[in-house]
Each structure stands twice: as C-alpha cells, then as structure tokens.
C-alpha cells in the first residue's frame, strides 16, 4: 500500500515536473499577475493529481495538464469576474490602430524588442492570447488546442487567424507611435 502511494505520486511528479515551466509561463500570460498565476498552477497540480487515475496513460500528459489549467482559469475567471475585475477582461481590449490592412509595411519592419513583443501579446484578449501561445510557443496541434480549450477546431482556426491579425495591428500601432516619438525627440529643443 505504501509502495502504491509513493509510486503514484512519483509517477505523477515524473510526468508533471517537466510541464511546470510551460504551465507557469502560460499562466503568467493568461493572468498577467504573479500571485494569481502561482495559485492557478498550484490548483492545477492538485486537481491533476486528484484525478490522475483518469489520465489515459500513453496520451499527451502536457495537453492534459493544460486542459485542467485552462478550465480552472476560465472557471475562476468567471467567478472572479462576478466579484471584481481581477483579470483584464477578454473583451476590454480596444485596438486603436488605424492600420491599412493592405499596407505593405511588414509587422516586423522595425525590430521589436522582447519587452515590446510581450506587451503586444499582453494586449490581446485572453481568448486570442491562449491559442496563440499554445500554437506558436508550445507547438500544440489544432486538435490538442481544441481539446485544451474545449472548443471546436473551427473556433481554434478562427481565433488564431484573428489573433494574428490583431497582433499585426497592435505591432503596427506600436511602430507608428514609435515613429512619432522619434520625430518629437529628434527636434532640437531650445534652452
């Protein structure tokens, strides 16, 4: 019996330890709050361990953990949304860019700093940010993302499409702001 107990937690930690960094990184991207991200990851691990017996051995454990975390995030988001605006809303992001969609100015025309890239990504609503991170950073397939987010594949496709479109708009907006700042700072200001 003791062996069973230790084997189970050992098996779980063997599978779960390598997932901690990607999970926490994504939790940070989702919540944009260190304390909330810590709680989210902690709760996800405890829940995953509780239901570890339901995990089908041989399937994608990382995707399984992400699904648990995503569900917890949305549940707690909905709960917290009722009480207070803990997270920035999925829908509160207004993109002011007036970029011409046919513009040939490439999104990466100006080399983006890592920090700016983070900011651009953070400006996306969570519904768009999550599939983008899952797809481009963690390289999950559409099928896996659909399972993680518990939505149809078609929704994953459209969200990715719209997420990239919005990212482009945000980056273009950043470029324009930056150009304006450069012009201003380039002026000679008399003493």
């Amino acid at each position, binding site marked *: 019996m003791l062996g069973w107990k230790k084997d189970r937690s050992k098996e779980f930690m063997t599978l779960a330890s390598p997932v901690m960094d990607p999970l926490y990184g994504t939790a940070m991207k989702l919540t944009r709050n260190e304390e909330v991200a810590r709680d989210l990851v*902690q709760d996800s691990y*405890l829940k995953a*361990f*509780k239901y570890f017996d339901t995990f089908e051995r041989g399937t994608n454990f990382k995707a399984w953990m992400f699904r648990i975390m995503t569900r917890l995030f949305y549940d707690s988001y909905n709960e917290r949304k009722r009480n207070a605006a803990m997270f920035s809303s999925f829908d509160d992001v207004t993109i002011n860019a007036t970029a011409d969609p046919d513009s040939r100015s490439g*999104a990466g025309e100006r080399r983006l700093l890592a920090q700016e*890239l*983070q900011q651009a990504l953070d400006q996306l609503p969570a519904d768009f940010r999550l599939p983008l*991170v899952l797809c481009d950073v963690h390289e999950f397939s559409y099928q896996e993302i659909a399972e993680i987010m518990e939505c149809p594949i078609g929704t994953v496709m459209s969200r990715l499409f719209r997420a990239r479109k919005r990212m*482009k708009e945000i980056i273009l907006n950043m470029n324009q702001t930056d150009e304006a700042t450069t012009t201003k700072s380039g002026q000679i200001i008399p003493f």
Partner: protein
Amino acid sequence: MDCREVEKLITLYIDAEISRQDRHEVEEHVKHCRRCTAVFEEAQEIKDLVRRVELDKAPHDLAVLIRSQITASAGREFAFNLLRLGSATAVFALAIYGGFAFLQGPPAPRPGAPVPVEVAMETADAPQVTAVAPVAAGNPSRANTMRRFSSPALSRLKKKIITPQVMENLVVEHVRPLPAEIQTPDSDSVARWYASKSGFYTPPPQLASWGGKMEGGRMSRFQDREAVQLFYNVQGKRVTVFMFRPDMIPDLVELNSTEAIDKTDEEDYISTTPGGRMVALFSHNGIGYSIITDLDFVVMRQCIRGIATQPF
C-alpha cells in the same frame, strides 16, 4: 481558389495543418498574387515573432511547494483508502465468518466450561444469530490474521502525529496577534526568561543565518499543557516556534542530527495546512519543537536543520 479562400487557409498553411491538396493550391495562388503573398509573409512573420516570446519560468519555491503538497495529498488519499479498505475488509471478514459459522453451527462448549448465557439462550431459540461471536472468538488464528494485516498500516497511521486538530490549534496560536511577554531580539535574554518560567535550559533556535530575527516570546499552551512560544521574523513573515515537553506527544520523531533528518521521511514531521502554511513537529535534545510558518518548504527545512544541529 480566390484570395478570400486563400487568406483563410494561410493560417493552416503556416501552422502545418493544411491538407496536401490545399497546400498545393495555396502555393500556386500565392505565386501569382502579390496581395496574398503579403498576407502570407505577414502571418508567417507574426508566428515567428510569437515563437520568440520568452515565457516566465516557474519559481523554485513554487515547485518545492507543489511537490510537498502532492506528497501530503498522497498521504491523505492513502489514509482514506486504507480506512475504506479496512472497513470493506472487516465487513467481508465478518460475512465470511458469519457464513462459515452458519454452516458449522454453534461451537460445542468444552466439557466443564461454563456456557455463556446468550449462547445457552440462543442455542435453544435461534442458533444462527449468535454463531458469529463465539466462532470469531473461538478462532484466534483467523482473528490474528486480521490483526496482522492491519497492524503495520495502522501503526503507520498512528505515526502521523500532525493531525488536522493539532495543525489547527498550532495555526490559531500562530496567527493570533498575542502580545509577547518578553520582547527583545537578544536570544540570551529570552533563554533566561523562559528557563525561569519553564525549566528549559536550552538556547532558543537560531534562525539568524537566513535573516531571521528573534522578536520575543510568551508562555503559551500546547495540547493543553504549558509551552514556550517564540516569535521570529524571517523575510518579513512570522515564524512561530513552540517548545514543549516531548512526552506530551507519543511517537514524536527525534531529530538530533542532519543524518537523522536525511533518514527520516519528511511526512512524519512536516505537514502543510489547507491554507498553505507549513507545520513541523519533532523533538530534539529532550525538548519537543513545533514550527509554524507562512513561508515555504525551503525555509521550513532550514529552520528544522537549525534546531536539529544545535549541540546538546
């Protein structure tokens, strides 16, 4: 395939989710369409940019905390399963004994032995009802089998001395804003003070090596007996240490050296409360210690090592 269709497929193309046929058609279209080429390049560029995003790594203390919580959770599950298995086994065993006894009938009393009143009455009226008790009692080998089966596991459970009740009492004392009877960072003064009150002639735990400061102490109660409660400030958070007579708690783990720490299962002396606080309970040099902290596992381990390596 027109531009509108191609634009939709570009996402699938750059994510390598497109079918072979669609891939071919998209490639053919893009070759001859400058607008779609631009859309394609931009989408690819965004993907490459997002790929470069560096995600935060999990803090070390979070990993340690999760590991300890999983271990604690496994312990709780084990106890629950054991109790469930124990009750199931007991019911099963009783059913077997009952069935067996029913088939055997009541045991014949030894010649000359006094016949129990219940047996005498029941043998006359309803023998099948009373057969269970005499058979179980009269078959010590089977009763011992049950005892042998459950005893190691039960003794293990008994060793789990940090019960929820103990934890709750300790945490209540830890969080209550009680005034210190002696308030000084000077551990010698604190030691002299509690020696006169409690008879503990041992220096207070030294937590200074990792930034801990003694704040003071008070006489308190632990498990309804007198105890010394010491307050420390470690990294801006309170660490409470109780010192008490170890005979108050049986099976207290004795930690007198780092070797003893390494050899002992941490579950036997550290536990995590549902609120995430760490609680430790052990003895050293004839004194029982309990540590309660809001800090993480690393600090708790350091506190324990600090006490366990104090000279006799």
